[in-house]
């Protein structure tokens, strides 16, 4: 156990001893009116209130228990997720036309993006273990920090102080010998809460697909794509005397994955990958009469073992590995100057290390920042101004600013919102230290983004509600880092200038007709992401970036009554280019997908049993998210959730 691990462990034990002697209800002692999430959530959760956000929360415990983040985002949003095949395959997000490394992924406010690549495989993140997922489109660099050109995706674990004990036992079986089982235990009282979640999954991914690389497009079955996953998370939440709040989180994740060949190759076993990570953090918040101080410390370690049988006949196996760590410290002070004015000041520090064979030893990097945020609100108008100064061992970005506003019209439910913000992204350790080719002189990517939109939230009541939001965005990304061939090897360079712009439209509605509940959701995004780097770009100029479709549409409808529920969803993804110069022979065709699920909830006095059946890719559409890697065809899943000692709502009883 490292010293930091030991310190975090000691703090958690000490805090647990302290809580038992006092039942002070911290939140109730605060004079300033804040909602529960703001008090208990991370600093970043409060920032998102001024941004265009999509939240996924109430369905996570049951519908997506243990599912990885890529599955949840693919099913619940219209975001552009690319994936190399079945469950557990490498999955990335290209939010608002950006690159995967340009979207920041946070676990309880702490970035989990890899120090080596800058991005993270979404299939390695158990989104279903979170209590809420929040997508903040175009998050500001001055508030969120590094790598937010696309935005920020935030996973939160929150306490339910009214909970005493509840257990969720979940199991799922599906096509192609897919099995998943997990347990979630939550216990505590008004002063402490403890969450433990564990999951085991095995997915051979032997799904059926049409091989479009072979004469006649024969039907084949995927081989060497299996995945085994074991993961645990625990969280301790404490309310302590003298208005202290503590949260401790730990996450162990181990996934073994075969890496299949592309459709054009002979499907022999070639490669295997093991990803392991241990993530721990502790958050301490002290509340004063008109202010608060929050401190966060985190230590994440990741390892990747790659094995490739490079010769079928010679039985020679090539092994390589990557180990990386990320230490994170943050402190910030929030001062409620008046009921209308809040000032926040803070600093964060990050130290990253990685040991990669190609680095010729251990590489490390440290970076820090000071930031300030001023929020004010006058009747229907609210705004914030923020500033960040970054400190970086290499040439860092200039000071970053952002300004955002929201104005609620006197007309019922209408509001306008807008934002202007600087963004940046540091070069990754691979960009700087990879040998040969690493470029220590790289500049950070920088840019500026503009958002303008409106929200119409029709007065909701018990019978129905409807919400419409629309937003236009424009974003410039300068010094985009790309690996290009030089005379003798590949090297990253700040060569691209990219302009992203588009429209996001969301409509959600809920209706209650007697005992029948209906809900509908439509999400549409039009995204242009053009390479504007002349003259080096040659034929790339003003062309849409690879794997960014112009059109993305998702429509989802649901009905529930007397414990029954059914959901139908439809998704359209437009044509995607796979080469920078749009070679039409290499394009990926548009596709339409439909999913259907049906379920029934059995209620007892305190328990719930939820049975659910799901058909994924209902019409057996043949499509690819990454060229030459087939996505699964029609698949069937059956799941059961036994929720012991759950709160039964009136809606449940109906």
């Amino acid at each position, binding site marked *: 156990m490292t010293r930091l691990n030991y310190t975090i462990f000691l703090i958690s034990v000490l805090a647990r001893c302290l809580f038992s002697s006092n039942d002070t209800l911290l939140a109730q002692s605060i004079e300033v009116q804040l909602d529960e999430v703001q008090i208990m959530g991370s600093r970043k959760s409060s920032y998102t209130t001024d941004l265009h956000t999509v939240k996924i929360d109430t369905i996570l415990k049951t519908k997506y228990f243990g599912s990885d983040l890529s599955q949840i985002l693919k099913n619940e949003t219209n975001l552009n997720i690319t994936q190399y095949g079945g469950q557990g395959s490498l999955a990335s997000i290209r939010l608002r036309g950006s690159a995967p490394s340009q979207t920041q992924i946070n676990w309880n406010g702490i970035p989990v993006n890899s120090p080596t690549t800058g991005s993270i495989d979404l299939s390695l993140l158990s989104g279903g273990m979170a209590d809420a997922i929040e997508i903040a489109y175009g998050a500001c660099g001055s508030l969120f920090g590094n790598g937010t050109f696309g935005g920020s995706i935030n996973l939160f674990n929150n306490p339910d102080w009214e909970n005493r004990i509840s257990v969720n036992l979940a199991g799922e079986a599906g096509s192609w010998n897919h099995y998943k089982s997990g347990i979630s235990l939550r216990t505590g009282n008004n002063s402490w809460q403890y969450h433990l979640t564990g999951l085991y999954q095995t997915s051979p991914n032997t799904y059926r697909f049409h091989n479009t*690389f072979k004469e006649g497009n024969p039907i084949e079955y995927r081989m060497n794509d299996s995945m085994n996953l074991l993961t645990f998370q625990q969280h301790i939440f404490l309310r302590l005397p003298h208005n202290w709040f503590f949260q401790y989180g730990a996450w162990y994740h181990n996934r073994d994955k075969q890496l299949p060949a592309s459709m054009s190759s002979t499907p022999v076993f070639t490669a295997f990958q093991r990803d392991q990570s241990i993530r721990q953090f502790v958050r301490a918040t002290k509340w004063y009469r008109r202010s608060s101080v929050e401190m966060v410390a985190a230590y994440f370690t990741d390892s990747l073992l790659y094995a490739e049988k490079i*010769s079928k*006949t010679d039985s020679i196996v090539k092994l390589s590995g990557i180990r990386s760590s990320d230490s994170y410290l943050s402190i910030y002070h929030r001062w409620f100057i008046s009921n209308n004015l809040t000032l926040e000041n803070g600093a964060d520090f990050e130290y990253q290390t990685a040991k990669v064979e190609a680095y010729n030893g251990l590489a490390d990097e440290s970076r820090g920042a000071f930031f300030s945020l001023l929020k004010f609100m006058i009747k229907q108008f609210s705004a914030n101004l923020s500033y960040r100064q970054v400190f970086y061992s290499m040439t860092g970005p200039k000071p970053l600013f952002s300004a955002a506003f929201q104005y609620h019209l006197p007309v019922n439910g209408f509001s306008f919102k807008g934002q202007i913000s600087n963004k940046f992204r540091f070069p990754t350790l691979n960009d700087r230290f990879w040998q040969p080719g690493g470029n220590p002189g790289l500049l950070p990517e920088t840019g500026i983004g503009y958002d303008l939109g409106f929200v119409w939230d029709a007065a909701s009541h018990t019978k129905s509600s409807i919400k419409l939001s629309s937003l236009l965005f424009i974003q410039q990304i300068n010094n985009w880092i790309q690996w290009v*061939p030089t005379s003798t090897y590949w090297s990253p360079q700040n060569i691209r200038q990219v302009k992203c712009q588009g429209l996001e439209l969301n409509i959600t509605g809920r209706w209650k007709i007697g005992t029948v509940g209906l809900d509908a959701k439509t999400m549409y995004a039009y995204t242009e992401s053009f390479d504007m780097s002349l003259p080096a770009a040659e*034929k790339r100029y003003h062309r849409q970036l690879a794997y960014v479709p112009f059109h993305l549409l998702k429509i989802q409808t649901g009905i529930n009554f007397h414990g029954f529920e059914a959901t139908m969803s439809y998704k359209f993804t437009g044509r995607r280019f796979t*080469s920078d110069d749009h070679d039409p022979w290499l394009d990926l065709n548009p596709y339409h997908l439909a999913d259907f699920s049906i379920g029934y909830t059995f209620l007892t006095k305190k328990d719930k049993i939820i049975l659910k059946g799901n058909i994924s890719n209902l019409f057996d559409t043949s499509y690819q998210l990454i060229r030459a890697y087939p996505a699964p065809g029609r698949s069937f899943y059956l799941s059961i959730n036994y929720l012991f000692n759950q709160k039964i709502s009136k809606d449940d009883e109906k």
Partner: protein
Amino acid sequence: MMRSKLTVCLVFGALFLASCGKENPAGDSDAGFLHGAYITNEGAFGNSNGSVSYFDTDSAYMINHVFESVNGRPLGDVVQSVSIAGDKAFIVVNNSQKVEVVDLKTFESIGVIDGLEYPRSFLAINDQKGYLTDGNFNGRVYVIDLESLKITDTIPCGSGPEKMIPYEQTVLVANSGGWGNDSTLTVIDTGTDKVSDTWVVGMNPADLVLDKDNQLWILCVGKVVWNPDWTIGEETSSSLVVLDPVSGKLKQTVNIGSVGDFYWPLRIGINKNKDRIYYLEAGGIYSISSSGSSSGSQPVISKNLYGFGIDPETDLIYALYAPSFTTSGWMFRYKPDGLRLDSLEVGIGPSQIVFN
């Protein structure tokens, strides 16, 4: 089959209209794709976007993605080489572990050689059989029956067998070392399909040509030993080795490039008169007289290139340029003195070119 023929007609028709009066020999003669240059565009590893471009050397007309156009499906991952045998082309697709065989009159696929591991290049020996190099560490040459397209025999050779060249009743195989090191040529008797000799030439021979005096010029990559941390532990210079193809006796060695330049040359070519040898090194295409003992310090063509070829009819130099592996490459044509004539777009990662 009917659909393929229809596709061929449509493709030719579209090309005819597109050329707008410009003669398109591929579309209106029985020759089809029999005469011209064939560019192998590797594509990006793992992306299955390799292709073959056909260039009509008479009309200067380029057709990209010719296999996909005719056969209605992608070619595969890492298109390694093309070899011509009569009216057939053998397209070696390395990371798809196959060889696509096409009829050059139409470019229609007429079969696939599969069951391979790491195929590199093909050489037709006669109308009945051909040789195919395969393997990384313990290499082999497969004997292929050209009628059935099946492997009929396996001839063991050195590590990483790469290019082959016929000489009288033998075939000389350059054992490039694969992911390790080797320094030999394997001599195969084409009558018996057996190894008749093994000659030590230079570290990691990759490509070879015969000059007008029947001297064998071998491009040797040089030895590279990687440390576990992927730093270079040991490296020797790249070289051109001149050999007597009858006795295997070494005549001379010319060092090229420099140690530590992170460049390991793979391509060699020869002009029409077979008295000037060209090779690709760091900085461009260099040349050396077949009677010379040292190469020029300045490249004939100064550009960072990925491959090249010499037209055996015109002596024009066809240089292949890959700006990145996410966008199309280019073919530049030069006169022998290095004067650039024109440029044409090809597929992703153009690496080799053969003429027929």
